[in-house]
């Protein structure tokens, strides 16, 4: 069953990475940000826009393949695709780039995510609804079951998941606080991180205001303006380019045991909203990669909220179901611990680029260039957003 996945191991590579500054108000269009990050990734790889023949976007992005190709001056695009939704995108976008290359549809694929997540499109504002006479839902959105009842944001959805985890397993706010603090500790080494110069103590965390119980301010990621991009090509070609290639070992998606329709809110209709698609994504990824959780040196774990990390620590097999809280509090995730995570600060403390920043930081680790470099790290797990389905990526040092 896995012959083709095994044959594809390490055949493609990330040849270049690029980011804009992560900020509160870019004062530029999302297209300008996407263009800047893409040019940075091309420059990093030693390539020019005319070398790109494929683009993979996230369906949440404003920018389409032709927008970006036109802005960059790519004359001959032979392949374009999109995969998401949202934070599920980046790992799967890299997988789709790999699939396009292995299938002969393209040779050099640009993968990007760009958003003005603070100055223009704030996800936490219940943006579906207008302020007068709002009528919502229908046509397979299922919003009609949630928005009229006050469930309007991702933060509220993850709050309901968190309360469920607390009910079942006795998980505590302090345990979530350890996750926020760990990400801040790494960010404090990262000059690009928006929270780079601000420390976070448990007292700060516990005294921060409640947004949607049991989640507090510091359980939430940073609304961010910015963009990130990577260039995927064959490993053979990447060897002749400017940077050391970062090998793409495998990529996989996965479904939760009790999948429902809809984007995000219907997760609260599941029999167990703490069971996420990451579990299957991880099992499939580890099998296809031939690398298990014990062999992962560093991980970039999608962190729209602290609870997202906690649930994924369980799903991806780093601890048993229900033990994510004690594991997070054990020190394993901290600098010097057995499983360093989100070494640039992640969404919680560096900036929210909907998961693409995690791919970039993983590539930095595999090139030996992170602001908190894990010495000798040879394997890096990257995970995507946990709803509605999971996605994950395994990268290796060349």
């Amino acid at each position, binding site marked *: 069953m896995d012959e083709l996945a095994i044959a594809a191991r390490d055949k493609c590579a990330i040849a270049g990475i690029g980011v804009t500054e992560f900020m509160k108000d870019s004062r530029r269009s999302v297209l300008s940000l996407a263009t800047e990050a893409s040019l940075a990734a091309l420059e990093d790889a030693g390539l020019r826009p005319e070398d790109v023949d494929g683009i993979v976007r996230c369906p949440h992005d404003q920018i389409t393949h032709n927008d970006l190709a036109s802005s960059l001056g790519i004359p001959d695009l032979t392949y374009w695709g999109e995969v998401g939704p949202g934070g599920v995108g980046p790992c799967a976008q890299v997988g789709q780039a790999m699939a396009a290359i292995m299938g002969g549809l393209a040779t050099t694929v640009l993968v990007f995510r760009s958003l003005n997540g603070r100055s223009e499109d704030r996800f936490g504002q219940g943006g579906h609804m207008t302020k007068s006479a709002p009528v*919502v839902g*229908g*046509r397979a959105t299922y919003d*009609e079951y949630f928005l*009229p009842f006050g*469930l309007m944001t991702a933060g509220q959805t993850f709050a309901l998941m968190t309360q469920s985890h607390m*009910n079942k397993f006795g998980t505590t706010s302090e345990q979530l606080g350890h996750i926020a603090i760990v990400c801040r500790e790494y960010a404090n080494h990262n000059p690009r991180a928006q929270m780079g110069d601000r420390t976070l103590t448990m007292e700060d965390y516990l005294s921060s205001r409640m947004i949607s119980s049991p989640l507090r301010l510091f359980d939430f990621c940073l609304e961010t303006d910015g963009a990130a991009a990577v260039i995927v090509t064959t490993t053979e070609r990447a060897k002749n380019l400017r940077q050391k290639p970062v090998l793409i070992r495998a990529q996989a998606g996965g479904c939760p045991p009790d999948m429902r329709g809809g984007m995000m809110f219907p997760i*609260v209709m599941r029999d167990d909203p703490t069971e996420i698609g990451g579990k299957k994504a991880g099992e499939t990824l580890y099998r296809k990669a031939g690398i298990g959780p014990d062999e992962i040196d560093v991980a970039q774990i999608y962190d729209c909220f602290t609870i997202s990390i906690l649930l994924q620590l369980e799903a991806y097999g780093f601890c048993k179901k229900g033990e994510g809280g004690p594991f997070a509090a054990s020190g394993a995730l901290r600098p010097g611990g057995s499983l360093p995570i989100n070494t640039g600060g992640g969404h919680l403390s560096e900036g929210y680029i909907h998961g693409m920043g995690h791919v970039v930081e993983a590539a930095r680790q595999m090139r030996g260039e992170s602001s908190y470099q894990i010495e000798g790290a040879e394997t890096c797990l990257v995970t995507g957003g946990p709803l509605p389905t999971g996605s994950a990526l395994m990268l290796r040092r060349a």
Partner: protein
Amino acid sequence: MADRVLPRKGDRDTGAFFEAADRRELVYKACDDCGTVINPPRARCAKCGGWNTSWKQSAGKARLNTWSVVHQQVHPLFPAPYTIVVVELDDAPGIRYVGYMDGAHDLHEGMAMRVRFEPTEDGGALPQWMPDNAE
């Protein structure tokens, strides 16, 4: 400004739920052949593969699964604090609905809840949930 966010009526898969609520009835979708409950509702039962699904009446008693007290307002029609509840029907385990409660409430998992129909300005109603103090 309207005083409610209203569900779109007439959707071919979900509309009957809201039409029932307008009549002050609580319903859920289930398979006529194998009994599997289906939520969000749709026409086909994935368990047995049949298309014989229909809406059933619920007595409107439930248990509280999870909840969140919203302290940061995100929309003017939902001033904080308010509480979002997720309940599971007693007579249709596996069917969960979301409800809105004004203010902050002291809740616990498994507590008994019952439906109440909150009138909307279009003459209909939304099914909401409150602690069932009768128990």
